[in-house]
């Protein structure tokens, strides 16, 4: 399990912590050593501003040498998860929704409707059937996961016919919702209120909000943290956003629960 680090990536450590918390054997792989990637069988592209988001978010990284082995692996059916900037890179690489040629994106995470970076706490809800998304093995229908939407460019945008296809063919993996799973408008103005895109085979997932930033009980600013008050172990335990990583780990174990 490799967590990729491009120049400008800033969420690699907490992503690696989440990966290890669900029992995966993960390592950081830096841009200066792309040859190391060959030995890994799954990949996470974490958040940040790869190559300073020069030209467009994710655009330069999508053409970087570090991404070549990831594209190959994705096409071979291996699991690839992109979070925030990682999601933008996967869209620029054409891996999600994956409806066009490589590196000719058909959909984009474009600048937020507000025109600004925003950091807001959100919940996202699984918007496709669980079997549509093997990268999250064992996820329940309509599962709700807490996360932080912290981005400037997270608005799903695509031509109308492409948006129809995304909706029809189940490429919109998660939508924004409230804590009870009721739909809410996307904070960034995303089309379809979409928070995540998945490819056709369901092995590549690009999610804008950060589940790894709300992945321990002490991260939760709601009643679930209050319930752990006074219980040090419970407070330091993984919970909430960690569930996304648990399903990812289960997928890597061939669908076997931990």
């Amino acid at each position, binding site marked *: 399990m490799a967590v990729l680090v491009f120049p400008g990536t800033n969420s690699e450590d*907490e992503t690696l912590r989440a990966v290890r918390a669900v029992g995966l054997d993960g390592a950081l792989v830096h841009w200066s050593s792309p040859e190391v990637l060959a030995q890994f069988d799954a990949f996470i592209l974490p958040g*940040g501003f790869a190559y300073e988001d020069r030209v467009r978010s994710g655009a330069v990284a999508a053409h970087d040498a570090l991404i070549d082995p990831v594209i190959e692996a994705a096409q071979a059916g291996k699991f690839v998860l992109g979070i925030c900037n990682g999601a933008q890179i996967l869209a620029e690489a054409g891996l999600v929704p994956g409806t066009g040629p490589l590196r000719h994106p058909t959909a984009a995470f474009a600048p937020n409707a*507000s025109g600004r970076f925003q950091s807001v706490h959100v919940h996202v809800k699984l918007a496709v059937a669980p079997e549509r998304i093997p990268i999250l093995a064992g996820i329940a229908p309509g599962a709700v996961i807490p996360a932080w939407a912290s981005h400037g460019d997270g608005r799903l945008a695509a031509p109308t016919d492409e948006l129809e296809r995304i909706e029809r063919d189940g490429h919109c993996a998660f939508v924004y919702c409230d804590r009870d799973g009721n739909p809410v408008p996307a904070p960034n103005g995303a089309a379809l209120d979409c928070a995540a895109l998945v490819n056709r085979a369901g092995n590549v997932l690009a999610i804008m909000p950060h589940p790894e930033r709300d992945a321990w009980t002490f991260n939760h*600013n709601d009643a679930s943290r209050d319930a752990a008050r006074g219980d040090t172990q419970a407070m330091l335990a993984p919970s909430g956003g960690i569930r996304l990583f648990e399903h990812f780990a289960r997928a890597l174990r061939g669908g076997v629960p931990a």
Partner: protein
Amino acid sequence: MHRTATLVDDTVALGRRLGVALSAEEMQRIAEHLGRVPTATELFAFDAQWSEHCSYKSSREHLKKLPTEGPTVLLGVGEDAGIVRLGEWNGETYGIVVAHESHNHPSQVVPFEGAATGIGGIVRDVLCMGAEVIGVADPLRFGRLENEHCRYVAQSVVDGIAAYGNAIGVPNVGGDVFFDESFDENVLVNVVALGLVKAQDIIHSRAPQGSAGWDIVLVGKATDRSGFGGASFSSLTLNEDDADQNKGAVQVPDPFLKNVIMRASYAVFAELRANGITAGFKDLGAGGLAGCSAELCAAGGMGAEVELERVSTAQRDLPPEVIAIGETQERLCWIVPPSFTPTLLSIYNDMYSLPRIARGACAAVIGKVTGSGRYVARHHGETVMDVDLEFLTGGIRYERPYVLPAPAEESDADRERVSAAALAWNPTSLFERLKLVLSHRDVCSRASIYRRYDGVVRGCTAIPPGFADAGVLVPVPGAPLGVAVGLGGNPRYGKIDPGRAAELAVVEAIASVIAVGATPVGLTDCLNFGDPTIPDQMGAFVAAVEGLATSAGALGVPFVSGNVSLYNRSSSGNHVAPSPIVGCVGAIADISRTTTGTFKRAGSWIVALTTTDSFGASVFAEIAKLDARGLPGIDYETFKESCAIVQEALAGDLVLAVRDISDGGVLGAVAEMAFGDDGRTIGVELFDGFGTGKFESGRLFAEGAGFVLEVGGHAEMDAFFLLCEEHGVYPDQIGMTTNGERLVYRHNESQNCDEIESISIAELREAWEAPLRDFYGRQ
């Protein structure tokens, strides 16, 4: 005699031609010390080192009064940042690095880059202690938003902070914002930064003992002309006509490069630890390369020989004085044994490929440490600097004349008069008053600002902005240790009584970390004042330092770092409101014991501790135009007991939520506790202070040291009252939380009494959120 006179005249003439800010007397001292006319490079070096910014020449004498020692101090004042003890975990002692800086002048001239550069600079101060940078917090003081230029500055400063902090991946976990006309022409942009370091891994900003012959390595961005003259610029009065010219003195930040330099430096720290090597590390700030390397070597009692042509430059033919003194951003300086140099260079240049990240960026050996005690710089073999290090960095001192401000006093008669006026003021409706207070510029929601900042990157944030008075991080993965950071400093107070304002700033900062369940372990200050050559302004500064010393001394929390920003004065003669701004770091031994400042459930009691009866300089006094002349008094003993009550009540599971009482008073705090952003809707019923009159409508808005608490239930309330009794503090019951969605004011606690007033929480919330949301935009 004649020769000396010529020497001095020639030096002064050179200084004037070069445009340095040194006084004639200062130049005379330099010329006489050197026994010759200094070179341009030397004169610029002295200009920077002897500037107010570097030398604290007006302030140092007074800063000695601050308490700086205590059992929580791992590294006290003296280096780029102080370090306080966080706690122990797995046999290791962890420290929190605390630094505080201002970037006021640059932010007035080029607000976006000025503010961004402020973050960049403070982050280097923390990094060079060998620490991981874990958080920043920004105290901001803007001018009136009715003023077009102030609007522009207020927008651009926030955007600049966001652009830099978000890119480097350091969470912004706190901050405060005040608006005042005294900042119309002089914005204040302060920043506090925190780092995490194990006690045994601290790296010092000095050439290690016996380091003669070691390499001096410059790391970072290619040196350019930007930021030349920055140190003396920040000590000059801003003149509108010079604004364009001044822009050249503001550096160009590159957060992307900084992101990579930070990570590469962490890799260097690991290598140093693995090899048991002691190195020296310092960031380049005011005074550029010469200032930084000179201070490094002077601190270790060593000397330096630097070859300026080895410095990577962005422009060809940069003159030696620009290479030596220019303040190009994103640069740091290492002192390492030559055996380690190849590893160091390889980490920056190959593994983290700095030259690919930004043109000309790299790590390069630029000189050697010597045992001579002199700073020698050559440019293509020509000596452009050869000075005694002690003389260069020892700085100079001024004893500025000052006139202390008269402390604001309020007689009992004054208080009664103000109280009567408050009661009579229209609207008399409590909740109409509350809406006005909540929509006041200094009280209203800051969400549309802090949501532009990334408060949760690194995944260690327990309490991001908006949930409590202080931000809380859990910085050591797997450990229950928490660190809280809170701020204090109110310009409305500063204008009335700088000394008392400073005391209240300390109290407010400490109260905010107490409120989240932390123990205050260290303070950091940024003292923003006007022109120190004006006795009244200098007097305000002196009074404020004395106030800080009084308060920190009384409460037993040491200062571990700080910064002084003087000359915050516009050419039209306006000085900023005396602004002592204080940050407090709190340590949390068990993160499961922390709490936020929002109501948790219905049926709890709402209680206030140590409320004041003075309206002085409160938001309400301003709105109601009360002639309140004093500031809230501080009874340190009662405040200390109140802090102990909060801590013990949290440890004993008696309280669910805590706020400190600040702008907006008790009722402002209660309203904010009801605005929880966590999916709960909780209402409030207020009592009318059991007939004592203490909580009649006006007084609910009086500000001062104290807390509002949500106490669990009847059993907890009994235990809480016992606890208060033990500490000799009498708590005031304000009301109860309810299942409703309204704030209701009953005549007294009996359910049978007639309801007096009622308002929906949503309506209050709208009043609170609207002002800055309308300005900064909905997030």
